[in-house]
């Protein structure tokens, strides 16, 4: 017996002891296991070009896709508005999943309700669920706004949100003037970034276009403010705060649309804040008057930005700006649109990032990377790697499309370090596994699920993306802007140096290269 009260062994150590190892070995005979030689043969076969070819010929099966479904994005964007309760119309299990998923990443509460549709609703439609659901949510959680989206169940049976919300109001579920914006967010179209886009557009449409026919449409009276849209982002807490800091330094009047940087980072002080921060409803309505709207992530706002543009604003989009040039472009655009100068402090921050890169680039230059994640994240990180003289050899985005691929390839074509790089839209992490075997790289950048790739292929994983469940608190730090670029640089360097140390720490064998100065 290995367990002891003095030194309590948990799962990490307990099962490695001889008693448990023997037990697990004895269990094998009941499992009808495959011949170990056959397991080894197949394992080696999965690493071959032949397997890669079969793997890439897949047409129907997805294995370890790096994308989630629309309503997750809708919930993410909805909580970025003041006092807003996301309400997802459809099966209730979905909402349990979104809440768990967001809580596991942010280590924060995630509040959201479901209309809990069951079999009878599948037959008769979910109108009664909407009527009761809105009334209950309104009374229990005292929201300032309820933002409705849909699960695939409600979409398949064709529930009409506009009509349902109207009827619910007529039945007195919520006051007639209470804000209930909505968006249809079918899980079988696009991904969570599509849901972000649809839900945000739904909210802006509600406030700007006359609240579903219940109020006059707003008339735009242009002012000097700029709207910022962050997009779906695992680093939303750090990134939006960094953007706000930059805008404050530049003295630009602004509205962050869907500012969820507070609600996903509330203090522990004895009080649970179901709602915290967020774009006020007044600011959301007034955002129509802004001079321009800037999207930090093009593929999160493919419908929202044209909608904003139709209202007469300038619109500009970026692709998850990480590093020197991407931040330069952002600041120049901000300056151009606002007419404000870029302050010396930001120039100094830029200089410091360039300084840091110059100090360290010898360790990154020429290294090969694989990246996967949401389309904009991939673009932003790949652009930064090129700037560092590294090669983003494989860039894979399960929810990237052909247009994304073309834009990525154009990025590669524009850099001497991008010549051997390739973008893979619509592929999953089992494809990535093949790539890492047949065309190996030095490092992998991705979310928590990349740890399976790291284990299988030995490619060290640098965790940037969403979700990140198995490392804590990184989402609190920005990756955008010069400060964010520095954070990403350090993350990459730490991994590079740790790997060198790991490879050179065998006494009597690798005493060389185990350097204390680098």
């Amino acid at each position: 017996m290995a367990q002891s009260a003095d030194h309590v062994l948990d799962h990490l150590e307990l099962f490695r002891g001889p008693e448990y190892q023997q037990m697990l070995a004895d269990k094998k005979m009941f499992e009808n296991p495959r011949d170990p030689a056959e397991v080894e043969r197949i394992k080696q076969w999965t690493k071959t070009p032949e397997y890669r070819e079969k793997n890439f010929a897949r047409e129907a099966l997805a294995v370890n896709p790096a994308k989630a479904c629309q309503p997750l994005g809708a919930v993410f964007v909805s909580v970025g508005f003041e006092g807003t309760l996301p309400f997802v119309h459809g099966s209730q299990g979905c909402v349990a999943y979104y809440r768990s998923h967001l809580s596991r990443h942010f280590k924060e509460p995630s509040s959201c309700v479901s209309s809990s549709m069951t079999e009878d609703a599948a037959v008769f439609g979910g109108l009664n669920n909407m009527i009761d659901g809105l009334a209950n949510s309104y009374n229990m959680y005292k929201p300032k706004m309820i933002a409705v989206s849909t699960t695939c169940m409600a979409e398949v049976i064709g529930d009409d949100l506009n009509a349902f919300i109207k009827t619910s109001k007529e039945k007195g579920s919520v006051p007639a003037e209470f804000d209930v914006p909505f968006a249809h967010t079918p899980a079988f179209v696009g991904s969570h970034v599509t849901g972000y886009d649809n839900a945000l557009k739904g909210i802006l449409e509600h406030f700007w276009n006359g609240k579903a026919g219940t109020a006059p449409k707003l008339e735009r009276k242009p002012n000097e403010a700029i709207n910022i849209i962050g997009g779906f982002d695992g680093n939303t807490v750090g990134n939006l705060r960094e953007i706000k800091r930059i805008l404050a330094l530049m003295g630009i009047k602004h509205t962050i649309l869907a500012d969820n940087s507070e609600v996903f980072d509330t203090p522990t002080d004895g009080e649970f804040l179901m709602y915290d921060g967020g774009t006020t409803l007044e600011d959301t309505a007034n955002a129509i008057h802004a001079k321009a709207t800037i999207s930090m992530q093009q593929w999160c706002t493919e419908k929202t930005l044209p909608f904003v543009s139709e209202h007469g604003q300038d619109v500009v989009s970026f692709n998850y700006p990480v590093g020197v040039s991407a931040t330069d472009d952002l600041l120049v655009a901000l300056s151009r649109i606002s007419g404000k100068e870029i302050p010396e402090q930001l120039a100094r921050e830029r200089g410091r990032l360039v300084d840091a890169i110059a100090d360290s680039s010898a360790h990154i230059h020429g290294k090969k990377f694989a990246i996967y994640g949401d389309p904009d994240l991939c673009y932003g990180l790949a652009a930064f790697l090129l700037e560092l003289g590294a090669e983003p050899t494989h860039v894979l985005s399960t929810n990237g499309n052909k247009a994304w691929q073309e834009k990525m390839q154009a990025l590669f074509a524009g850099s001497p370090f991008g010549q051997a790089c390739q973008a893979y839209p619509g592929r999953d992490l089992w494809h990535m596994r093949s790539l890492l075997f047949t065309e190996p790289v030095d490092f992998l950048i991705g979310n928590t699920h990349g740890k399976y790739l790291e284990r299988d292929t030995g490619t060290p994983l640098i965790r940037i993306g969403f979700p990140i469940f198995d490392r804590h608190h990184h989402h609190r730090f920005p990756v955008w802007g010069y400060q964010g670029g520095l954070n990403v640089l350090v993350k990459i360097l730490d991994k590079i140096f740790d790997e060198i140390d790991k490879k050179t720490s065998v006494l009597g064998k690798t005493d060389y290269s185990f350097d204390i100065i680098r």
Partner: protein
Amino acid sequence: MSLATTQSIAEIRARNKELIEEVLKVYPEKTAKRRAKHLNVHQAGKSDCGVKSNIKSIPGVMTIRGCAYAGSKGVVWGPIKDMVHISHGPVGCGQYSWGSRRNYYVGTTGVDSFVTLQFTSDFQEKDIVFGGDKKLIKVLDEIQELFPLNNGITIQSECPIGLIGDDIEAVSRSKSKEYDGKTIVPVRCEGFRGVSQSLGHHIANDAVRDWIFDKLEPDGEPKFQPTPYDVAIIGDYNIGGDAWSSRILLEEMGLRVIAQWSGDGSLAELEATPKAKLNILHCYRSMNYISRHMEEKFGIPWCEYNFFGPSKIAESLRKIAGYFDDKIKEGAERVIEKYQPLVDAVIAKYRPRLEGKTVMLYVGGLRPRHVIGAYEDLGMEVVGTGYEFGHNDDYQRTAQHYVKDSTLIYDDVNGYEFERFVEKVQPDLVGSGIKEKYVFQKMGVPFRQMHSWDYSGPYHGYDGFAIFARDMDMAVNSPIWKKTKAPWKEAAKPKLLAAE
């Protein structure tokens, strides 16, 4: 700190009743009427907890429950390691349930084991419009080609499957034939079925019956020589290794475990279970169905047991041994004796730090009652408990064997109710899930996730009890809980925004 320890039973009862009344005030009348049936103060001597259960959740209240898919793919089928489980439908369900349950296993992942892979048919609009059976056929072919060592495949239906009229049973039959009788199991666990995870468990159990047991050749050669001491562990999902720290005790007392359902389990183990002499059932809620079926069809008796905390472990070991001869009965005594020094040392170390501390629970299958004994072994008291998806038979077991007089009972509790209860009762510890964890920690209340063991475990068996005790101590006695208030601010009473 705890109110419960300083008041009489009558006072606690009155307070709890008042608390329920107060909570119900927030609801529209219709909802209040419905919710009132799910909340109660337990009365000693009653045969159940006096609450309605296994009823539809009310829209919009922030129920904590999940769905039938979660019950089937996430709980029952997902842990079977040598089978590929397809999340059939759109991408989300499989994504959110990917690797999050911690049902440990050993195997060459991606080659002969598949638990922590996310296989999905990733439905697109055209699959909804034209039906998904063609895609499913292709998915099955691609799995066969790329994962040739899989021992079987299950099709875990997501909501759209049942709504668009796909015939996954027909696809399963024809593909099974094509692949020489390969086990392919269609599971109708669409998320809109039933009222919670619970129906998903039942559907998954029935799928084992129909698509595995019913296809067994009655006189098939056994893969191993049977012994009089063969048992199957039913309803242990090996969270953090729970089934392993249970199996080791059963084997030490002289039994032979021929199958684990379903943590670290395999298709061969499922198929072998009709040869067991006794099925021992941990999670009654999720696997009583198949246990009853095996009793009826194969004449295998089953018994419930509880491996949380030394009191219940010893009781359970003796109960299980009661089905066997003296050799096993002596084995049980030997095991209890062997671990007594560990138990004594754990209790000596942790009980003084935890004595008198109060706990509120809200969990799934068996834990709202099963862990009460383990807390009591540490001198702690459970003052409130409830089931996410329990049925009346769960509440009967709870009332008859576990909870004390005046315990607050809440079935299918929602965010609002649970926060109010905790705010008023002020327990020293809350044990619930990931969705609740950060809410209560923000309020300054120590918390342990009691689904995933908060990434710790195992908690089953004697080895697990040591970990359980350590974890409860580190939660309750973490120094950080003394620092939630800034020293320059007055200690304010925790309050909820929603309650203002």
